[in-house]
């Protein structure tokens, strides 16, 4: 249970703000990792594809942060959330902050995250908040494409050469301990779910597992053990050491000149 949220009385406003920030942080940090590929992809076409997906995520995050500060109502700008929060205030999943690794690692993570997002967005398109529904409607098309792009790559890398098979298998094995958290829910989720303002991720967990299992099997890959030890704590701001470095890089210019306008 989150100590940060437990100590405070939850209100719709607080819970929704927290929920939007979690969604946004996942997308911003993953977008950041993908943007690191720009100029370094395996072939021009894929360089362009990865930059496209990075842009989608950062754009989704921007919309979510904007709505979050609007809900908060304290006159903050979306960039305040991006540039002036420290590691423990970031609520993204550890899965998305791990270094980009090789192309296999990047694609394995893309597949797990975009298949998860695919089910998540289906539910979000039905919740009782017009603004979130509007956002989701726009983003969902892109999410569907992210899934198609990454799934097709999993098939090619898994059933490609011996080298690609072992690289993509290693990638899944290495990140597996971080996938449990995708389905972590706490009182913020429960509070909002009662008002139909949040998605119940438990409801699609088995569908998601089937999709992952089917895809990996089609790609001649082994599905790692679902029951292995899974790390927790991301939604309470407990991160890997990697996030600090990522934020240092992302925030340093903006923080070095806090009074400057860059728009």
């Amino acid at each position, binding site marked *: 249970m989150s100590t940060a949220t437990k100590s405070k009385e939850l209100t719709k406003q607080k819970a929704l703000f927290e929920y939007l920030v979690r969604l946004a942080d996942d997308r911003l940090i993953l977008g*950041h990792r993908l*943007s*690191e590929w*720009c*100029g*370094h*992809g*395996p*072939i*021009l*076409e*894929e*360089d*362009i594809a990865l*930059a*496209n997906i*990075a*842009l989608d995520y*950062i*754009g989704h*995050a*921007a919309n979510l*942060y904007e709505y979050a500060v609007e809900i908060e109502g304290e006159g903050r700008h*979306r*960039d305040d959330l*991006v*540039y002036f929060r420290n590691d423990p205030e970031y609520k993204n999943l550890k899965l998305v902050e791990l270094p980009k690794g*090789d*192309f*296999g690692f990047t694609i394995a993570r893309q597949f797990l995250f975009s298949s998860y997002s695919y089910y998540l967005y289906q539910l979000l398109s039905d919740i009782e908040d017009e603004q979130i529904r509007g956002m989701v409607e726009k983003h969902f098309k892109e999410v569907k494409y992210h899934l198609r792009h990454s799934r097709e790559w999993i*098939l*090619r*890398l898994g*059933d*490609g*050469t011996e*080298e*690609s098979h072992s*690289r993509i298998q290693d990638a899944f094995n290495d990140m597996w301990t971080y996938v449990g958290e995708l389905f972590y829910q706490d009182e913020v989720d429960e509070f909002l779910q009662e008002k139909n303002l949040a998605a119940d991720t438990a409801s699609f967990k088995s569908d998601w597992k089937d999709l992952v299992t089917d895809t990996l099997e089609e790609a001649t890959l082994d599905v790692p053990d679902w029951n292995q030890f899974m790390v927790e704590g991301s939604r309470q701001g407990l991160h890997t050491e990697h996030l600090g470095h990522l934020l240092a*890089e*992302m925030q*340093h*210019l*903006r923080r070095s*000149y806090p*009074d*400057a*306008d*860059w*728009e």
Partner: protein
Amino acid sequence: MKTFQERIDNGETIEPKDDMPDRYRQQLIRMMSQHAHSEVVGMLPEGNWITRAPSLRRKMILLSKVQDEAGHGLYLYSATETLGASRKEVINQLLEGKAKYSSIFNYPTLTWADVAVIGWLVDGAAIINQTMLARSSYGPYSRAMVRICKEESFHKKQGYEMVATMADGTPEQQDMIQDAVNRWWWPTLMMFGPHDENSPNSAELIKWGVKSKTNDELRQSFVDRHVAEAHEVGLEIPDDDLEYNEETGHWEFGEIDWDEFWNVVKGNGPMNKERMKARREAHENGKWVREAAEEYARKQKLSKEKAS
């Protein structure tokens, strides 16, 4: 039958399967592949700041701009392929150090202001060059340029917008942007190449309708436009000899340091080695990915053939 030169003089467009002198083909392959390499290597200096952009808006603009450059490299490689030079072949020439790319990308981006100034000056220079090339006699090159010019129209604009914001910003921002202008002004002037009398390719390319203006003419229109824009936002151009000539209506400017120019062309610029290293690493790290996709396609084809 009209001769090739008659077709050119007649303003006709040359298409891939048309007869063309071998020298025309070779010159175009050289020029277009260099142009393609420049787009791709050009992603690196700006790409250096994507993860550090100071606002989400700036981050998204920069990422989409650098991504556009990958697209433009791709269009240009495709156009070069119509002349019989495969992408693999010309990329290998780059990676082996046999091909050139625009020297401007061998300078480092040291502060965020460099990103603004690249958009304003470097893209400003590129637009002048590319607008001319959009009327090139070779169809695929000209069509690629039309598409690129259309897409790049926002590149310079976003740069100049940022230059203006910083020039109107805090004292630190003003110093930062002036410093960037001081470092990029002269290398940008060098982008147009040697003086006409030292540019043997230029006359030939003009004769063949690939280019329609000389290096010095293009450089002059760049200077005229950008001096005015600099003054508009209160920035100084680092050239003591800069003077407006009322009679010609042009800005006269000082002599370029041609030793520096040739030195960077020969590979001794501040970032030549690192740029090539980054391209080679991307290529080598991507090899297993390209191979896997091809192997998968081969297997799929085989199993389809078996099934039918």
